[in-house]
């Protein structure tokens, strides 16, 4: 390339260099460099992601102080065994793609911290029902996946639970209920009218999911047949 007036711009030259086949590096050399760079990049990426999962990070924002205080009075913060659940254990999924999604969505938290949407006690309480309801929706949708990372009905010894708990948990298994159906407010104070709002969330989800059985039914003749049989039985039974 000559240094004449036709010399391309800076970025153009970088671009061209980037795509020019190398004559000095072997394919193996490039592969090994790429492999190492990949490990470093991925490790660094993962590490910084985990940094945002610590209790200090979550409560570093002024707006999360209310929740922190409430959570500090619960069994998940302080208990006889010293095993704890921190914010991210309940609020950030462990599965990689769900986790990335949760992290991207949490960008809105930064925005609202900057805007001061919930920066006073009063404003917080004004928004609490709405925020709680979003959390319930996620938990109900995921069948309380985050609780189940630590708790599992299968390993609960109902004989050493309180009678009320054991009875309710048996009912929960029988009726396919999920933890959040009964354990709202497990870590934070509940706003007024939470039961009505929770019911609304559940109804709304049921509405959204209603068309689903029909969709799958159309893909599978056996289900269609048994579905039809059921509905004819129902009408003839009437």
């Amino acid at each position: 390339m000559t240094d004449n007036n036709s010399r391309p711009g800076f970025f153009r030259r970088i671009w061209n260099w980037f795509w020019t086949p190398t004559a000095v590096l072997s394919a193996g050399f490039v592969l090994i460099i790429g492999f190492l760079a990949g490990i470093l990049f991925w490790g660094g990426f993962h590490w910084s992601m985990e940094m945002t999962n610590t209790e200090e990070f979550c409560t570093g924002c002024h707006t999360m102080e209310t929740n922190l205080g409430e959570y500090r009075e619960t069994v998940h913060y302080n208990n006889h065994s010293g095993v704890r659940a921190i914010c991210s254990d309940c609020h950030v999924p462990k599965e990689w793609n769900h986790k990335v999604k949760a992290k991207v969505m949490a960008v809105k938290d930064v925005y609202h911290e900057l805007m001061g949407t919930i920066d006073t006690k009063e404003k917080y309480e004004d928004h609490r029902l709405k925020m709680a309801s979003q959390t319930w929706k996620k938990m109900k949708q995921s069948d309380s996946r985050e609780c189940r990372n630590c708790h599992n009905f299968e390993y609960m010894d109902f004989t050493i639970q309180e009678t009320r708990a054991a009875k309710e948990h048996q009912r929960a298994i029988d009726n396919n209920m999920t933890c959040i159906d009964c354990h709202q407010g497990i870590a934070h104070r509940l706003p007024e009218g939470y039961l009505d709002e929770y019911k609304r969330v559940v109804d709304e989800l049921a509405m959204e999911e209603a068309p689903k059985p029909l969709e799958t039914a159309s893909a599978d003749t056996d289900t269609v047949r048994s579905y039809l049989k059921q509905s004819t039985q129902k009408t003839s039974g009437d």
Partner: protein
Amino acid sequence: MLNLLGTIAGNILSLPGILGLALGMTTRNLLLASIMGAIVGFAETLIFAGFDMSNVEMLELVISMGVGLLAGALGCAIRIKGTTV
């Protein structure tokens, strides 16, 4: 809206985006590359739904197949631009 962006980002950073790109880079055939990417997207959604079609969210399936398809196509473009074979 945030939900959508989150789903897209989640897919770019997991199998459809990364394996899709890698598979795309194995061929100079744009159609083949896109199809392979889309298959990865489809497979991932199915795996996460526990191989039960009734658990598959339509929107999620479409997004992950779309991301896979684009990643495959990008991989193919990289192959064409960056290699002589």
